[in-house]
């Protein structure tokens, strides 16, 4: 195994650890805005995992998934925040 693929697998493992820790915050977060923040970080982590998986397999088509995901993550957190603002009134 070359050093390069070792680096990629190590990065994949570290990002999975990030996902688990974000999940803990998502579970114990005392309020709803905490959960929205954790959701934002979820999306960023998954984009990173998709990027590293693209590099590991060498198939360039997977990067389109990351583009779509970055669009939809922004829409998701904005609509959650808007719903929260409306329901507070």
């Amino acid at each position, binding site marked *: 195994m070359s*050093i*390069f693929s070792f*680096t*990629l697998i190590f*990065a994949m493992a*570290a*990002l999975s*650890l*990030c996902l688990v*820790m*974000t999940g*803990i*915050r998502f579970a114990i977060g005392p*309020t*709803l*805005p*905490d959960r*929205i*923040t*954790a959701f*934002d*970080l979820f999306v*960023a*982590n998954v*984009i*990173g995992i998709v*990027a*590293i998986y*693209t*590099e590991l397999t060498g198939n*360039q088509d997977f*990067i*389109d998934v*990351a*583009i779509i995901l*970055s*669009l939809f993550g*922004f829409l998701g*957190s*904005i609509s959650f*925040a*808007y719903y*929260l*603002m409306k329901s*507070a*009134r």
Partner: protein
Amino acid sequence: MFEDINFLLIREIISSVFIIIGVMFMLISTIGLLRFPDFYIRMSAITKGATLGLGFILSGMGIYFNEPDMFLKVMLIIGFTFLTSPVAAHVIGRTAVRNKIPFWDHTNLDEFKDYLHKEHSAHRDHERDNTQV
């Protein structure tokens, strides 16, 4: 002179360094999300760390593939993330203030009291109007 250099090896090394730096930023911001005591501190600390880490990982990937199409897509994702992440942070923060999420005990709120008072009393007036109708 240039024929002796293994360009694939150079690209792999540069890409590895970029990815390691990006993953370190992501890991640090996630630990910060777990450790910090207050919603606003978590918000202001983590969103930017994740954005910078993502930028490093993606540019490492663009350097490894070494093609114009890939570079265009990578620049698209980085530009979009840097545009939208502060907007999302701002909207969520303002929503949290309106929903009366408490600040940390040591927070210095001297210059913010007028705004908080106005905002929350406006809420109370609104609710009273609703109940009267």
